[in-house]
């Protein structure tokens, strides 16, 4: 399928199966849209005279139906149709006969030129391309990435926390070094030929168990040379109690440091409160800004969450830039519909406007001192992920796992303590292959709601945990997340086309 969209005052077309991206004029958009109509076949062809016998053989029913309707259209049988059919024809605008009667010669020429361009791109496999028939890769048993929940304690009580204040609904506890060490061993033993292994220190708040973080890094570093592995450490912190010693350590050892700040002070303090109920903004910003200066050009992100309380979230993104952070991300809150902070479908127009506003500001600031990088606007068209990567996102439960302080293994941090998805533990070293199989097979090719979606190879079918927690199953669709994802991708593609 080809998805056309308007963004930042221009039109674009994305061929979802080949990943080809085009900027198009209005005529091209119009023709592509008409070829996308329900009367068109897989290559977007709907003119009866262009249909070959071979195609007709492949799709006899669809072809016959299209031909019949187009022939009826061409001989002016509109009056014989019901009102509903009449309306359907008018909306789909597929009738070449009536369309061409109202065009000027110049428009006719433009139409013919554009059609020739489209046909050329179709012949190159860059428009209306067909998907691969290749079966997705089978799981090979390799784990390469681990989220270590080193502490199920937290010094904040964020109103939207999926981890229930850090404890995940269980006893607030820290991970012992013994468990962390076993987890690293477990990762190494299951990593096969993968050279780069990832360990993310997560929580709760990892700085509340800094000693174990430091010992774990030291232990893993000691394994790198003998085993020919490279550990890539990351940490996610609220920075509320980020000491100078912790900042120095993170700066030296962490490949990426993710710091949580929600944007403007009042927005942040309304939802990110301390255990005593006070605002956490001043401490978090002071420590984060200090770390930012220390970090220099190394990788970091300041990451916030927006909720129904700040639907004007672009202002929060730009506030983060004003604070001196140039690598930022703002994530939509993920909560049940009944939660007062949850985003609603009614909010989507406003949210879409905010993404586009942020995209415009992103382009405006390129090359200036105020230039910034927004995580969801990154698209590497020329060197992006391969097809395999695009089919199953994070690989939760198979290539990516999370370990709790007690050593239990779950598909990811958002599944922690979800009994149905407990995979095993790092001591026995055995994981539940039935649960793994269920997760691995839940790829984008097996999700009915993804099949007609242009964004499927960019979002890879969405977050299994969000689907599990909010839509009732990993196979199901969390619809509002899909809507926001599509808009973010459109903005990202528009930015990439324009800059």
């Amino acid at each position, binding site marked *: 399928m080809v998805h056309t969209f308007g963004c930042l005052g221009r039109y*674009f077309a994305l061929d979802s199966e*080949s*990943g*080809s*991206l*085009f*900027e*198009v004029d209005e005529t*091209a958009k119009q023709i592509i849209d008409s070829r996308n109509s329900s009367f068109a076949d897989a290559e977007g062809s709907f003119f009866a005279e262009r249909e070959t016998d071979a195609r007709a053989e492949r799709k006899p029913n669809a072809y016959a139906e299209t031909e019949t309707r187009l022939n009826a259209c061409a001989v002016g049988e509109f009056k014989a149709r019901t009102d509903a059919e009449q309306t359907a024809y008018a909306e789909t605008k597929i009738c070449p006969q009536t369309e061409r009667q109202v065009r000027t010669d110049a428009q006719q020429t*433009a139409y013919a*030129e*554009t059609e020739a361009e489209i046909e050329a791109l179709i012949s190159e496999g*860059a428009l209306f*391309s067909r998907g691969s028939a*290749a079966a997705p890769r089978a799981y090979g048993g*390799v784990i*390469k*990435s681990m*989220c270590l929940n080193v502490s199920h304690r937290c010094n904040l009580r964020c109103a939207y926390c999926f981890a229930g204040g850090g404890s995940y609904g269980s006893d607030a506890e820290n991970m012992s070094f013994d468990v962390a060490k076993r987890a690293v061993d477990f990762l190494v033993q299951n990593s096969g030929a*993968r*050279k*780069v292994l990832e360990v*993310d220190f997560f929580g709760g708040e990892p700085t509340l168990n800094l000693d174990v973080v430091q010992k774990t890094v030291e232990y893993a570093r000691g394994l790198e040379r003998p085993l020919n592995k490279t550990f*890539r450490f*990351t940490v996610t912190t609220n920075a509320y109690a980020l000491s100078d010693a912790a900042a120095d350590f993170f700066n030296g050892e962490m490949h*990426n440091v*993710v710091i949580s700040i929600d944007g403007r002070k009042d927005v942040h303090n309304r939802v990110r409160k301390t255990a005593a109920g006070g605002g956490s903004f001043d401490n978090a910003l002071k420590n984060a800004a200090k770390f930012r200066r220390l970090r220099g050009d190394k990788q970091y*992100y300041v*990451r916030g969450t927006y909720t129904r309380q700040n639907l004007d979230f672009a202002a929060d993104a730009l506030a983060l830039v004003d604070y001196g952070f140039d690598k930022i991300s703002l*994530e*939509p809150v*993920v909560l049940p519909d009944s939660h007062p902070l949850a985003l609603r479908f009614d909010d989507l127009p406003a949210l879409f406007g905010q993404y586009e506003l942020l995209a415009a500001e992103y382009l405006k600031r390129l090359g200036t001192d105020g230039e910034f990088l927004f995580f969801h606007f990154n698209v*590497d*068209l020329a*060197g*992006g*992920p*391969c*097809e*395999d*990567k*695009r089919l199953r*996102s*994070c690989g*939760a439960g198979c*290539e*990516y796992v999370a370990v709790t302080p007690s050593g239990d293994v779950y598909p990811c*941090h958002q599944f922690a303590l979800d009994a149905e998805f407990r995979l095993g533990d790092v001591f026995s070293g055995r994981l539940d292959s039935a649960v793994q199989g269920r997760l691995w097979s839940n790829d984008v090719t097996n999700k009915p709601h993804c099949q007609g979606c242009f*964004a499927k190879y*960019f*979002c*890879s*079918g*969405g*977050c299994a945990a*969000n689907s599990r927690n909010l839509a009732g199953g990993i196979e199901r669709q969390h619809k509002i*997340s899909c809507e926001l*994802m599509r808009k973010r991708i459109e903005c990202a*593609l528009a930015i*990439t086309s324009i800059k």
Partner: protein
Amino acid sequence: MKHIRTVAKNTIRRGAGTGCGECQSSCQSACKTSCTVGNQSCERIDVKINRPSDLK
């Protein structure tokens, strides 16, 4: 072309040779509550899978 400007062509390579697994797990980068792979890069050291010769 007058009416269509190509930004990138055929960037999703299908079939054999993909899936080396050396790239970052998508959730480890910045989000932790959503999933995006489109903004990642291929990290294959020798030959980037999705780098067709006709790409800019």
